[in-house]
């Protein structure tokens, strides 16, 4: 436990970050914010959970997906994680929701064939590239993480499973090779979320994975709801297996650094993970969201080890001291004070929880002050992300919902899978709080009663606003195309390190013409079981230019760019900027 007098002197300190008053030019749009274009664009994917009516926990836990440009053609492709059967001697066609396809269920890779003619004309279409890719993911899939593990400029794909995980090395030309064994990155347990992070700043991406529960079909007990009817168990009936940190040795192999890095010391039933420099010391820290156990905030000790500081930091449990059912998690500077705040989704009847970073990684649960308490109580949240849907400069929130215990009203309606709940968007007011956006404004697809799990974020059609890929358990994937965001100005940044890859962990400060600073972080992690667009999309409101862009690279050096063009994507290469004044 880190506890020094100095910590307490700066509790209420805020970095000199001031944002202007909200600059929306289009606060109300005649179009709903999102429109589902999955089917029409060829992104046809139905999740299969293998359920047989025996209430096995994994069948309601997955699955996620990834948005990543695997073919380096400048647009985001899609990977969707698939389930399979759970019980031995069961075929996919014999389960409660039978798999109708001739081929068995497996994770699928879709290539984005985006056509752009002129600024406004974009045609989005996807083709299934799975068979040619070499990705054979036929296990009980959970999530995906993306990072370039060999610094060849091609994003690699890590797939988490109930059972052994898979590391796929991107060889270029749309081909992947399974290097799980050679790289030493397997974990045979039930892994959920994962994050690529260069925790020792040696230029190679390491990998943190979180594990959920020591489940097997044979050790799964019967559980009951308060009505005494059969229902899904909580994870607490299974032992928590512990998480794992893999250190990238830079030669295509990883070593298990869990023990040496001391992240084995504390763990719970892990579902979410996000990495960020929470104490602003230039070294990436790791935050793990646990289902029913206190969360961990692993503070990087800069020597290859971590210390869990969550309890003292005020980020382990909610303001009442209660551990909550952490599912998805994200971190970003939502209030513009320059620090990484944390938002975690939870079970219905609990609130989702907003931990505001007061500086130096000291947090305060400000859920109710931020207006996020009540709206979260109604649903069970999973995927979540801070993103600026309307490009007004303030980070909003998306929450993907879906229950984990049978919902009585849906049971009464004879719903065959009575866990469906609508998804939510919350607009950042710019005053430390959020307002839930109503159904008409958000879009009809957000009101569907589906069992959403993953939520993946990125600008799929490269039009300057953030789209959302929602993965539904036992349901179709939905690609929610943002129809309104690019009415405001924006800055698109592709931040590339000297090692030739997306510079995950780089901190980017966009200084606007008025002198305010928008702080963002390059990452693919966050949300739930998902890997997001590594590019930064920074909303500028009415501002047509920015004064400068400052990048703090993961190695600590800082560079600055002037006159970066707005309303387009620009690549910032490490070494090409100038020293800041």
């Amino acid at each position: 436990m880190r506890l020094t007098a100095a910590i307490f002197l700066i509790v209420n300190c805020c970095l000199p970050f001031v944002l202007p008053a909200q600059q929306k030019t289009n606060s109300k749009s005649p179009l709903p914010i999102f429109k589902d274009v999955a089917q029409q664009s060829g992104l046809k994917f139905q999740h299969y959970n293998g359920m047989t009516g025996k209430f096995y926990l994994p069948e309601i836990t997955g699955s996620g997906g990834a948005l990543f440009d695997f073919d380096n053609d400048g647009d985001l492709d899609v990977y969707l994680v698939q389930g399979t059967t759970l019980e031995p001697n069961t075929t996919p066609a014999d389960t409660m929701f039978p798999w109708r396809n001739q081929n068995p269920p497996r994770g699928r890779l879709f290539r984005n064939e985006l056509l752009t003619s002129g600024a406004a004309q974009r045609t989005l279409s996807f083709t299934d590239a799975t068979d040619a890719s070499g990705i054979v993911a036929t296990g009980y899939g959970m999530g995906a993480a993306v990072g370039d593990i060999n610094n060849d400029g091609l994003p690699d794909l890590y797939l988490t499973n109930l059972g052994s995980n898979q590391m796929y090395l991107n060889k270029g030309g749309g081909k992947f090779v399974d290097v799980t064994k050679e790289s030493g990155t397997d974990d045979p347990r039930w892994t959920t979320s994962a994050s690529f992070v260069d925790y020792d700043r040696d230029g190679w991406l390491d990998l943190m994975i979180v594990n959920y529960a020591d489940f097997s079909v044979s050790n799964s007990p019967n559980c009951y709801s308060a009505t005494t009817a059969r229902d899904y168990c909580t994870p607490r009936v299974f032992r928590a297996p512990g998480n794992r940190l893999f250190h990238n040795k830079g030669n295509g192999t990883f070593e298990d650094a869990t023990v040496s890095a001391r992240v084995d010391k504390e763990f719970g039933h892990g579902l979410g993970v996000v990495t960020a420099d929470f104490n602003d010391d230039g070294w990436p820290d790791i935050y793990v969201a646990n289902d029913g156990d206190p969360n961990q905030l692993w503070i990087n000790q800069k020597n290859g080890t971590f210390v869990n500081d969550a309890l003292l930091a005020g980020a382990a449990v909610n303001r009442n001291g209660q551990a909550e059912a952490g599912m998805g998690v994200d971190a970003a500077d939502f209030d513009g004070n320059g620090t990484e705040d944390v938002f975690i989704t939870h079970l219905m009847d609990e609130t989702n929880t907003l931990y505001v970073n007061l500086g130096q990684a000291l947090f305060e649960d400000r859920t109710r002050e931020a207006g996020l308490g009540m709206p979260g109580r109604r649903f069970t949240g999973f995927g979540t992300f801070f993103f600026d849907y309307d490009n007004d400069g303030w980070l909003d929130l998306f929450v993907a919902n879906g229950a984990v215990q049978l919902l009585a009203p849906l049971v009464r309606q004879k719903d065959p899978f009575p866990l469906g709940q609508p998804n939510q968007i919350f607009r950042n007011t710019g005053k430390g709080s959020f307002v839930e956006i109503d159904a008409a404004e958000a879009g009809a697809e957000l009101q569907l009663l589906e069992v959403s799990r993953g939520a993946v974020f990125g600008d799929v059609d490269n039009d300057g606003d953030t789209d959302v890929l929602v993965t539904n358990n036992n349901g179709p994937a939905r690609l929610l195309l943002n129809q309104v965001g690019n009415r405001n100005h924006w800055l698109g940044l592709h931040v590339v390190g000297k090692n030739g890859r997306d510079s995950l962990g780089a901190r980017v400060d966009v200084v606007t013409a008025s002198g305010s600073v928008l702080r963002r972080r390059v990452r693919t992690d966050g949300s739930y079981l998902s890997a997001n667009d590594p590019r930064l999309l920074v909303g500028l409101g009415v501002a047509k230019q920015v004064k400068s862009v400052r990048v703090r690279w993961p190695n600590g050096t800082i560079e600055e760019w002037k006159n970066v063009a707005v309303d387009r994507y620009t690549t910032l290469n490490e070494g090409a900027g100038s020293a800041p004044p």
Partner: protein
Amino acid sequence: MVVGAQTAPADRVLQPSRKDLVAVHLPDLSTLEEGVREQLTAEQNSLAAALKNPAISNATLSEAYGKLGQVCHAYSLTAPARECYLNAMTLAPNDFRWIYLTAELDREEGHFDDAIGRFSRARSLRPDYVAVSVNLGNIFLELNRLSDAESAFAKALEIEKNNPAALYGMGQVSASNRKYAEAVRYFEQTLAQVPAANRVHYSLAMAYRELGNAEKVKTHLAQQGTVGVRVSDPLVDGLQDLITGERVYLSRGKIAFEAQRYAEAANEFRKAVAIKPDSVIARVNLGAALSQIGDLKHAAEQFEEVLRLEPGKAIAHYNLGIIRAVENKPEQAIAHLRSALSIEPNDTTARFLLAQQLNKSGNAEEALSEYARVVQSNPGNERALLEHVKLLFREGQFKQSLDALEKSHEQYPQRGQTVVLLAYLLAASPQTDLRNGTRALDLAQRVFATSSTPQYGALVALALAELGRCSEAADWQRRMIAAAEQDQNKNANLLVKLRAGLKQYESGQSCRPENETILAELFMGPS
């Protein structure tokens, strides 16, 4: 078959006898526990009979609706409970109970505006019912309406001046208003009323953090736990008395167990056993809860009873194995663990325990065999590996001991304790041809660089001695003695060993460890 409605018979609807009442939609009961189903059916029939009575008074019909509503509420069948309460309220508009319980449903389901309205009305009828004000305060707090919350908690404190839930609420209001000294006072008062409410320590710690009192933060975080405060609420608490099903108690017990409230869990499981004495799961859980509170005698009785009911219940054997091990009865522990393993041979935890007990009972040969099986099935289990290696060492199987360590080290090169034992064996194995001083030194230095403790420093000295670098070994040893002497938690036994080692290293050319016993006990366990 579907999950939500497994047999899906038509729901039963109790049509109202009057226009101002609503129909009560009773859910499909087929998935519920038999006793619960019978209880609910009996209550439904009773109401149905009342509805057929044209002469029934409003008060009597209200009671009948209210009773069914309460039973439904007790089992979280909230929709029919609400319909029943609404009718009961219509028939008896000033009956506090139905307004209050409907408000409670509103609160449980997150309809906070409705809850505020109904709790306020309930408070006008029963201003003395302290739970109404506390509930209102908590809802206002949730809505961040801090002054309303403060007023509600203040009203509760007017009724009961030391009500812990209201004091805690006042503390939360103060903390939200950033009046941390005031918050501390309220939280301290709460704890004074309910010392067992250890969750309050967290709130106290956070308030002290804002006040900059690091010592208090540390003290309270060390005491924080999972027990909160709640207001005494006879009406809501009374719902629990209506519950008859075993599963509900199992469920409640499980929640309490998971929250480490073991006494409460045992109480719930006891109720489940009382309802269904032949319930294996209730008895297993009761035994587990009793074990956690240290009542091993009664825990063992439960597991024995489970084995009488279901002789092949592996978990009962396993738990009895643990209890007998704790009671230092290795032979009985071994018998139960063997039984558990005969049913679930892949249970490596049971096998590991078995190996330990075999070792304890002096059966080293079988213990070695069991340890080997554990390590084979789970090479990542470092603890089992180390126990195995130590036992091999103590049995004089030095080559096997070293081989096992080398194999594990190759697979998990960063495992600290594995490296420690490997360094020790390479420096001081009684079988001298197995030694490799250079590697031992390298490994020991790696260990010491990670954890600079005197015993690991002594390992470096031992490796230096093996290489014949006696004066360097002596220098290291002196430094470690100095460090050990300065250690606040001075370990006298370690100091004795370090000094004995120093004596050997200072003896000059013969400092190479021959029959090293000084550190053997430290690293390899008692011989």
